[in-house]
């Protein structure tokens, strides 16, 4: 995990320098390199494909507009994700009422099969295979709905950690918070997530 991050950073610094010189090809390479990762964390936070695409596009537009001012004090990776997360958090705060009512309407749609699968998943003492879980559509849908019920800031730390696989230090940099805050926020977020999932069973 650690060596991969270092490699990305080295490549990024070269691409960033080329971008700052107005190299449109370097800009395109940066976009292609990060588009799926940024799109994914945005999608998991806003749960809407169209909005995620638009926010991803907006993120890259902002990155390119601001790249001249990027001085490399933080890594390009965390800087870019900070832009993406901030845009998404603003979007989520604007649309919170609409999203919550939409989720409430969907809550009753959980059929018995999904509940049963969730019950088995949570009560199983053995360690389930992540690949098998990923193939379980019902469980994944429940995961999305649970995530959407989290507070925006809690959701951001969970997504950055569990989807993007960021270290606590990177999350602290992206969200511009203390390391201890990341630790406590993530702890509360996962606890809330567990409670939400268990509430689906009741």
């Amino acid at each position, binding site marked *: 995990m650690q060596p991969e991050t270092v490699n990305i950073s080295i490549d990024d610094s070269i691409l960033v320098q080329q971008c700052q010189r107005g190299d449109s090809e370097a800009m395109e390479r940066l976009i*292609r390199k990060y588009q799926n990762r940024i799109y994914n964390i945005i999608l998991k936070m806003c749960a809407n494909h169209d909005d995620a695409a638009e926010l991803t*596009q907006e993120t890259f537009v902002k990155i390119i507009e601001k790249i001249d001012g990027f001085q490399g004090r933080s890594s390009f990776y965390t800087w870019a994700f900070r832009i993406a997360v901030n845009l998404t958090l603003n979007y989520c705060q604007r649309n919170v009422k609409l999203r919550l009512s939409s989720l409430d309407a969907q809550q009753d749609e959980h059929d018995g099969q999904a509940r049963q699968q969730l019950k088995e*998943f949570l009560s199983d003492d053995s360690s389930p295979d992540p690949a098998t879980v*990923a193939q379980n559509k019902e469980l994944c849908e429940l995961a999305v709905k649970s995530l959407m019920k989290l507070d925006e800031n809690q959701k951001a730390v969970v997504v950055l950690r569990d*989807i993007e696989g960021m270290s606590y230090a990177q999350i602290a940099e992206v969200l511009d918070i203390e390391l201890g805050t990341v*630790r406590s926020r993530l702890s509360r977020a996962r606890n809330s997530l*567990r409670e939400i999932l268990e509430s689906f069973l009741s």
Partner: protein
Amino acid sequence: MKEESDINELLNSFLDGELSERQKTEVHRLVAHDMEIAKRLKKLQKCSMLVASMPYEQAPLDMAEQVKTALERKALLAEQPFAIDERRGARHLMFRKVFAAAAMFILVAVLAAVIYIVVTPEPTRPAIGFAGRLELKTNDLLAVDKIINNVIKSNGLEDSANLEHQRDKNIYTLSCSRENLSTFLADLENSWDSFNSATLFVETHTHQGPMLVVVNGVDAKQIANLITPPKPKLTAEEKTSIELPAQAQDEKKVRLTIVIEANQADN
């Protein structure tokens, strides 16, 4: 409660590989000795796994193109308000120029009107150059009447004269040019001794309003001077420039009403 949250944080950090070796050993010890903590760790692990196992989605394939288009659109929009502002500015500037010109024009017009009112004299009656009433008293009304008639005829003013006979008085009204009236008065001058008295009444207009000027013991020459006041000496250039108004002045008709009245003694 604080201890509970500390353990939760410790378990989460353990799951995320964010603990030191000493802390990891501590977690292993806790899990091994406390089934509740072991179950909690399991649940946290599953929550984390569930989130992590959510499908990894691909961004739209044309994302780079979309970004490029968005940047171009934004650049165009950034230019457009400037252009709009520029046009608005030009319109505003033009409006200000027109407004300033109109204000200046109105100001000049008002000033001109004020100056005109201050400088120009009070208007006089332009329809007629001179209008007066000459009252002549005589002991011999018939003789004087004959003299007047003769002078009118000798000057060819029959068409310009109007005669009205009243008891003890004859009233002649002459409406003619200044020149004709002057000639008439010059001819009458020789017979002026026939009048016992001659009084001229002239209505004029002053700043205070209409005023009646009475000249007692007036003679023919004085009346002629009143009718044709002496012209100021003008330069050649001035003469040219005021030639037409001067002619117009001469062409204005004058009116003199002559009242010949018999003296009381005559009655």
